[in-house]
């Protein structure tokens, strides 16, 4: 019986072994990604609409993203995004003197 191939050394791993004890499978990864994307789509709908406008060859994509953004805005879900963005914009514009 041939010897098994050598395993890569664990010592240089970026994610240490103590953080690898618990985890999931490829299906779990997919589930997490899908849920994460849906949640992102709820709160960052405005950016989704902006991004989809780059696909000039697929106007239906931009239209759907625009309608989705309108629906999220009506539901107030895009408000936290706008509040944060405006707050950061004020911080960026802040100077050392207030006069």
């Amino acid at each position: 019986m041939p010897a098994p191939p050598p395993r890569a050394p664990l010592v240089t791993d970026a994610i240490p072994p103590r953080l690898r004890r618990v985890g999931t499978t490829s299906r779990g990864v997919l589930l997490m990604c899908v849920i994460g994307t849906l949640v992102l789509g709820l709160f960052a709908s405005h950016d989704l609409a902006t991004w989809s406008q780059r696909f000039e060859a697929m106007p239906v994509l931009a239209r759907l993203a625009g309608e989705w953004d309108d629906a999220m805005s009506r539901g107030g879900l895009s408000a936290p995004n706008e509040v944060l963005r405006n707050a950061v914009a004020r911080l960026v514009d802040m100077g050392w003197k207030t006069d």
Partner: protein
Amino acid sequence: MLFPTFGFLLFFLVVAAALAALDGHFTAKKAVLVVASYYFYAAWDWHFCFLLAFSSAVSFTAGLLIGAGTRKRLVLTVAIAVHLLLLGTFKYLDFLTLSANWLAHLLGLHAELPFIEVILPVGISFFTFHGISYIVDVYRGDVAVCKRPLDMLLYMSFFPQLVAGPIVRASYFLPQLARPSDEPIPIAAAAVLILGGLFKKVVIANYLATGLADPVFGAPTSYGGPDLLLATYAYAVQIYCDFSAYTDMAIAIAALCGFRFPRNFDQPYRAQRLREFWQRWHISLSTWLRDYLYKPLGGNRYGAFKTYRNLIVTMLLGGIWHGAGWKFVMWGALHGGGLAVERMLMPSRPRTIAGRIVSTVAVFHFVCLAWIFFRAEDFTVASLFIAGLFRGWDQGVQQAGPFSVALILIGMAGQFTPVRLFEPLSAWLERVPLWGIGVAAGIGVAIVNALGPEGVAPFIYFRF
């Protein structure tokens, strides 16, 4: 295709779906990852997929020939020469042409070499080093010969590390392709790495670039010393946050695909010696240079003078690896010279607390000085920038606002925060059900997205 974009998110959703559907079929998974990696690379320029495939074919064939024992040294030499020729042609031909024409002009010659303006393929420096690493490791007997073309294609093209590293050694990655891992996928740690990486790139690096580093480095003579100094600090934090963010996300994405990557950064600005800085900064490159260049040159085995020479030569070549230009030569020379002088004058770490603090501050400022050459448009601009640091201190700051200064302080604070403080977050996330991690990740990405400026600038290391 950049990691922090909706385009990449959709791409990864498709990859994750394919990997989930093929659970239990390891070879098919690897094939999907190869196709995904070539699609990822083709998003920049599909023509260069042929270059990547050719580079893989050279490494694979050389490995087989060396393994068969046929003229091992000749095969090694030819294969490395082919890799370096490709790198030299695409990355350095224009630089060499310009330098030769400049020299000819100085010597009063009127002949000029034609300037071709070769397009630099993204990631060529990284996949060239992957190929050389494999061939040398096979020659040295450090890794088994790769007999599956699919494994070699994946090793050379795996999309998380394809365009900006980390440089993953064949001896580290190929054994992971030999059989499927029985480890669970560390989804909590991966989520923390992705969110941390996004914050570093989208918020810290992007705002420091647009708000301070880019305008000041673009016109250094328009600003006084305080702005130039703060822009230097800003760039030091920006390049760390930019590159380490890419690495963190690459490590996490590889982990989500079921593979391990090595550590590439370890709070480099807390280094007390320049040598220690290189043990903490771009670790996969510094160890590559150490094992495939410094040691074969003789390392520290032949006396002090040759050790200093080897350090300088290694860092000079490390500088040129980053880019074709005299400013990168200067950056490498500064680091090589600094390492040699440090070895000569300060062979061990300082023992007192005050000595350690002074050393850390001195090493950080030396690294910052070298970053000025790295960042400036050219050698002349770097010289103007350094001269400007000593002028105009009565003007106060014009460009650096409180927000930029706060980001510099946050970036530097991260260098001195014990890494283990973040581990409870991963440990807590491990207990959260999968849907909860998904919700938390979605909200986290949405927050970072809202905090960052519109659009995402390319990663600095993409151009290397």
